[in-house]
């Protein structure tokens, strides 16, 4: 018969009971989102904690500050299921691991945008705000006058007013008839009407019209409580303009782009890199330049941070793709998108909505990322994985 020797180090009771509730809250708030969800199953007390708004807000601020970003992407191919996936790079730097998870299927709805851990999605009739982790969703009121017209939709949050707003730009075009049929190519923009909804309000507000065409389906950049877009040049104007929309004052403003080469057409996308507004420019020499505005609002503070050479990832070298999109494949940098900068200064790029690549600027090397069951085409947004919801006070 063996004796069980109890040493002084062996604890027989729940050691967590030593700690007050607020400390357990601090500990849980430092877990990554999936671990936080798993910790719900440990005991009932922990489950109650995960519903505490203070825990969610603290956890969110940890997640938002981390340099290991995460993304959600949605694909409709190969299975037409609008499947959502979550990728997390927080362990990439320390352990070389990228977490890739299939999210639970919500509804067959299309992903538009992400802000503060909430997704803005739409289907044919409605627009929704949802958190894919907690699967709570909110259906937004319909835009009454233009129920069928969906223009450009963006979703943002202002730190001071603590409000979430959705902005929808509806385009009214002058239809040009050509031989009895509408010629889409030459339809000119008559008006773009701007409607804003503050989440929580019962209806949209029409706040005026915009002389620009925001028809590019490029994700916006949210910096300093302002949304930014590049407008598409129209028939009278060949330049693309950088526009900002203040979520508090609801005013549009033009902003100065960097002087990179004199041409006004070279910037083709915006993003937020390490909290700064940034723009990617493509020139004829096939290089992608990334400019960063170090001080908000000051034109001179635009600095060319880095240049990315021409590179075609192996997946895109498949022959079938080349036939499909010859020009883009030959000049991949004309349609590459910079996603973010990782902790060790490596840069994440997205090529043609198909491939995610990690670029190391010090060595000039590219590494392609693929995953099991990776969809063929996808729409990718930067997303903070959290249990956040609209009423939770985040800063």
């Amino acid at each position: 018969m063996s004796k069980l020797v109890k040493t002084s180090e062996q604890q027989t009771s729940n050691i967590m009971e030593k700690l007050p509730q607020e400390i357990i809250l601090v500990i849980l708030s430092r877990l990554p989102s999936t671990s936080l969800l798993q910790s719900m199953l440990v005991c009932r007390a922990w489950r109650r904690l995960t519903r505490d708004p203070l825990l969610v807000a603290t956890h969110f601020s940890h997640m938002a500050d981390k340099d290991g970003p995460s993304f959600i992407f949605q694909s409709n191919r190969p299975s037409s299921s609008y499947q959502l996936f979550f990728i997390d790079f927080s362990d990439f730097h320390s352990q070389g691991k990228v977490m890739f998870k299939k999210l639970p299927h919500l509804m067959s709805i299309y992903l538009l945008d992400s802000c503060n851990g909430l997704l803005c999605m739409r289907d044919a009739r409605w627009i929704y705000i949802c958190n894919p982790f907690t699967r709570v969703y909110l259906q937004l009121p319909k835009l009454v006058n233009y129920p069928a017209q969906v223009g450009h939709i963006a979703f943002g949050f202002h730190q001071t007013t603590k409000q979430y707003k959705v902005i929808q730009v509806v385009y009214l075009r002058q239809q040009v008839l050509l031989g009895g049929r509408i010629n889409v190519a030459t339809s000119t923009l008559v008006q773009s009407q701007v409607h804003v909804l503050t989440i929580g309000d019962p209806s949209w507000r029409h706040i005026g019209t915009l002389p620009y065409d925001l028809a590019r389906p490029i994700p916006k950049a949210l910096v300093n409580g302002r949304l930014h877009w590049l407008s598409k040049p129209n028939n009278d104007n060949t330049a693309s303009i950088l526009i900002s929309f203040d979520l508090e004052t609801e005013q549009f403003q033009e902003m100065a782009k960097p002087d990179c080469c004199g041409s006004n057409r070279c910037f083709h996308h915006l993003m937020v890199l390490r909290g700064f507004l940034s723009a990617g420019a493509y020139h004829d020499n096939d290089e992608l330049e990334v400019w960063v505005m170090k001080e908000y609002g000051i034109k001179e503070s635009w600095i060319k941070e880095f240049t990315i050479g021409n590179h075609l990832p192996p997946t895109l070298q498949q022959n079938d793709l080349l036939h499909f999109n010859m020009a883009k494949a030959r000049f991949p940098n004309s349609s590459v998108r910079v996603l973010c900068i990782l902790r060790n200064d490596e840069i994440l790029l997205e090529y043609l909505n198909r491939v995610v690549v990690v670029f190391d600027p010090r060595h000039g090397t590219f590494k392609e990322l693929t995953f099991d069951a990776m969809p063929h085409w996808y729409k990718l947004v930067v997303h903070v994985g959290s249990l956040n919801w609209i009423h939770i006070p985040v800063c």
Partner: protein
Amino acid sequence: MGSTSTKIKLRTSDQKVFEVEKAVAVQSQTIKYIYENGCPDSVIHVHSVSGDILSKILDYCKKHVNSAAGKEDISPEELYEWDANFVKVDQNTLFDLILAANCLKIESLLDLTCQTVANMIKGKRPEEIRTTFNIKNDYTIEAEEAVRRENKWAFDMLGGVGTMVIEELADDTMSKCVTNTKSRVCVIAANQIVMMRSISKLANKKSIDVYKQPQNPTTPRIKESVKQRNVGTGFIELFFHFKCKM
């Protein structure tokens, strides 16, 4: 303007007295408050902290004060490593450190110790977390099932945690593996190359090709066939957990 070598006396719960420099002691906001608002010459009682724990805490504060003031030549990475070693203690001591850091209001130590516990929880299944900390499971079986079902995707540890980073190799064979068919994915794991087919195609294949990277680079790659088990309904999900070869 006080002298830089002002000392403060601290008495612990087990009646031990520690004499430390003011700069070190006021890392604790609690001690700082008491010192600035009480009598600076008498002893400050720290009732809730034992001598052993306070001794460790004072080591921590001293290290951080010295490194910040430049008295010790230590790089941020070395300090980070020192911190990592500092928290390599048994659970009881760690939790006592947390309580003491909370009571004495030493923010950086509280962050460090809480993050250490969070790292112990991270990546573990609920059963493992309960075992580690001896937490009693107060869920009924039905309730536990319901919660697990609700968040199934998060518990699905197998559902895709993996790193598949494909090096941009000049090797022809390698890039062929990648680009050959849409349904094949090539993965480098340690020194093996595994070819997998996507889930739907697995139904018809009875074995998976595993290419072993030979020790001697000049010998050709060895192909082994690993038999699949449990064909079942015809769909098998293969899950791999790799460390990326960086």
